[in-house]
Structures are given as structure tokens and as C-alpha cells.
């Protein structure tokens, strides 16, 4: 089967610092890839290069048979097919949970208001926040805000969803509710790339783990292989360290 997403030789430089130094990988439909690595190794930049929120300097991104990085690519149309979940949620402050989820349907997909409402309520229900539809972001907890933002991404019926450290801004007791929603999505067959430090999640949900450092992929493979017998010593070292910090249940 053709891969859903192909990333080829992505480079990105900020000033003198080369954040991404040639990253390539593929992602199949229904697959969940977890990207791990020390801070400042370009994980977030990589995600943003995939939907061109950040323009890569070099390399190509293909979503099915469409080249995302082509200068004439219909980038807005492509972005509407790629969900993005931010570390800081970035819910629209002036809109209720329902309107946050509905806005893209109405403004981007040109869906009728009634249909959009039904669709948005489905997704809010899916993340367990049906009863918070009328609440403004300021009245929601961090965990609830992040779940609304996941519903906002889901409502667009994306081909894949990119998660940029979705639990890093959350209080520890709120992390579980967000990870549970994400694990359920993976189970439902959603294609996802998740940048995270949550090793327990990586281990139990990922089909494949990608370990990145200094702007390159050091090693990638199924979680069991990376956790038990990594080929590169540095991978094992990082996994041990991060597992101590964040905890990775067997």
C-alpha cells in the first residue's frame, strides 16, 4: 500500500542554527508514529514543516499523491486535511467550545450551520465534552481545552493529525484524560504523529517510535525493539533517562 505521508530530506535553518538536517520517513494509513528526543532537536519544527506552518528550506513532503511542499500547492486545502494539535491548545479565546469545533467546518468546508453543529457535537461527545459545548476556553481546564482542540481537529475529517507535545502544558493530573482520548483515536484507526515525552503512551500506543536528536533521526522502529534492544547506544540512554523522569509502565 502507498504510504499516506512521505517526508523526504527536510532541512530547516533558523539563522545560523540548522534545526533539521535532512529528515525522511513514511507513514502508512492508520499508523501512529511517536517522535521523541531531547528539547531543541527540531521535533516541533518537523511537525510544522509537514503542513507548512513553517516553510522547510529543502526537501519534500507528500500527502498521498499531492506534494505539500510544491510552490503551487493549494496549501489551505491541504492544511484542512491535516489536523494540528498544539502544546498550548490555541483554542479561539472568543468562541465557545462548540464554535471552536464548528468554525473550520463553516468557514473552510463551507458546511451549513445546522450540519456543522451536529458534526461538532459528535466530536465533542467523542472527547467526552458534550456538556461543555457552551463554555468558553477560559472556563475550561487545560485538559478540557486540549480535548476541545482535538475535537476541533477531528471535525475536519483529517487524513492525519499532528500532535505537538499535547500534554506538556498540562498539570500532571490532567494528562491522563488527554492521552486516553488519543489512545482511543489510535485504536479507531486515525493516522497520527505525536511528539511527546510520555513514554508510557509511546510504548503502548505507537506503532513506531522515532528518536530524533540534533536535527536528524537517530533511530526508528517498533516500541518493543527501541525499548529492549536499540541499535544505537544513544537511543537506549535517552529512553532510560526519560523513562525515569516521566515513567514508562511495563
Amino acid at each position, binding site marked *: 500500500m502507498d504510504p499516506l505521508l512521505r517526508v523526504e530530506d527536510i532541512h530547516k535553518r533558523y539563522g545560523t542554527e540548522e534545526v533539521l538536517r535532512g529528515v525522511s520517513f513514511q507513514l502508512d494509513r492508520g499508523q501512529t508514529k511517536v517522535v521523541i528526543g531531547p*528539547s531543541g532537536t527540531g521535533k*516541533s519544527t518537523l511537525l510544522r514543516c509537514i*503542513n507548512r*506552518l513553517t516553510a522547510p528550506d529543502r526537501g519534500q513532503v507528500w500527502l498521498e499523491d499531492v506534494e505539500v511542499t510544491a510552490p503551487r500547492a493549494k496549501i*489551505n*486545502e*491541504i*492544511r*484542512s*486535511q*491535516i*489536523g*494540528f494539535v*498544539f*502544546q*498550548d*491548545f*490555541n*483554542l*479561539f*479565546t*472568543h468562541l465557545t467550545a462548540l464554535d471552536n469545533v464548528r*468554525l*473550520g467546518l463553516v*468557514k*473552510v468546508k463551507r458546511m451549513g450551520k445546522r450540519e456543522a453543529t451536529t458534526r461538532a457535537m459528535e466530536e465533542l461527545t467523542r472527547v467526552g465534552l458534550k456538556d461543555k459545548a457552551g463554555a*468558553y*476556553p*477560559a*472556563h475550561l481546564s487545560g485538559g478540557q481545552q486540549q480535548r476541545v*482542540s482535538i475535537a*476541533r481537529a477531528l471535525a*475536519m475529517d483529517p487524513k492525519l493529525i499532528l500532535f505537538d507535545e499535547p500534554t506538556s*502544558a498540562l498539570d500532571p493530573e490532567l494528562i491522563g484524560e488527554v492521552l486516553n482520548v488519543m489512545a482511543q483515536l489510535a485504536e479507531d484507526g486515525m493516522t497520527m504523529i505525536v511528539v511527546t515525552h510520555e513514554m508510557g503512551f509511546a510504548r503502548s500506543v505507537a506503532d513506531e517510535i522515532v528518536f530524533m536528536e540534533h536535527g536528524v533521526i537517530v533511530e526508528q522502529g517498533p516500541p518493543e525493539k527501541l525499548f529492549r534492544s536499540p541499535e544505537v547506544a544513544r537511543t537506549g540512554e535517552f529512553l532510560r533517562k526519560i523513562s525515569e523522569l516521566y515513567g514508562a509502565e511495563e
Partner: protein
Amino acid sequence: MEAVIANVVEVTRHLPMLLRSSLINIQLLLALLVVGFLVGTVVALLQVYGGRFVGVVAFVYEWVFRSIPALVLLFLFYYGPAQFGLYISSFLAATLALGFRSSAYQSQVFRGAIQSVPPGQMLAARSLGMGRGRAVISIVLPQAFRLAIPGWSNEFASVVKDTTLAYAVGLNEIMRSARIIVDRRYDLAMLALLVVALIFLVFTYAGNGLLGVVERRVRVPGLTTAEPGGTRREHG
């Protein structure tokens, strides 16, 4: 004492004329606020989102209209076009002169408000597939306008009073009516002007009350000037 009472009665007789002409001030106020709002919003957007060249043009515009005295602007707009055979009404001249002037001040208020909307809001909108213009209209401006209300109220209070300057280009507004009373009976000057002052006290009071109502109506939790841009952390 009797003379004072007689004067009050005389000025009261002119009250309908003063009130009628004060409607012209209100019309001018609304017209110049609309011009100032529309142009001010565009100038602010150009300063924030335009390139360097556009930004410089917008800056010069703002600088020019904030530097020239209002009275000079009024005369320039009224007599200027006439030099080229283009005769415009004193109302239109006053609307444009005071409106453009106000737009320079309003653009500052809006620019600050636009810049205090966190960049993540734009990113999230773009990630859904909205174009930049769409995102500005649906996401950035609705938040910026709410944040701008307090600053905009100051500008409102200031331009209410500026409408009396249109007297200088012959608009039949309230100052001109007061002047007619004074020309007939100079001893009524003090009283007539006090009535004008009183009318403006009411205008300002009513206007601020109205803006207060608007502010409460559109208020959204988490979006106030007390905590500009909300409470979120930026990306680390």
C-alpha cells in the same frame, strides 16, 4: 436677579435651536467615527501584516494626521479642493478632515489590540486551512476589537468635542447656533455657552454609557485588557 431670570428665559427660548443644531454634531460625530473606524482598522492591519514598505506608508499617514492641528486640517479639506474647482460641503469636509485625523488615533488603538492577540490564534486558524485574510476577519479582529474598547472610548470622548471645530468651516452645528444667539445679545454669551457645555456633558455621559453597554454585551471570559492576550504561555 430679575435680569438673570429674564436671560435664562431668553436662552431657554433658543434651546430648541441649540438642540436641533446639536443633531448636526451627532451626525458629524457618527460620520467621522465611521471613517475613522474603517480607515483606522485598515491602517492598523497594514502596519501589523503589511510588508516594510506598506508599514512605512502607514506610519507616515499616522504621523501626518496626528501632527497637524485639527483646525488646520479642517481648512485644508474645506478650501483645498476648492482650489481645484472641487467644491465640497462643509459637512463632508469636516467628516473627512476629522475622520482621517481620528483614523490615525484609532489605528494606534487597533494596532496595539491586534498585536496583543497571541500569535497561536493565527497559527491555529491557519492550521485549519483558513487563509490569512479569513483568519484575520474570523479570529484576530473579533478579539482585537474587544480588547480595543477601552482605548477606543478615549478616542470617542475626544472626537465628540472636536465636532464643534466644524463651526470654523461654516457648518450649522451647535457652536454656530450659540454664536447666533451671542451676536444678537452679547450679554447672553455666558449662559448660551454654558448650555452648550451642558449638552456636551450629556453627550459624553450617554456615549460612555452606551460603550459600557457594548463592552458588557460582547465581553467574553478570558479576553479583557486586564490580561492582554489571555493567560497562555508561549511556546518554549
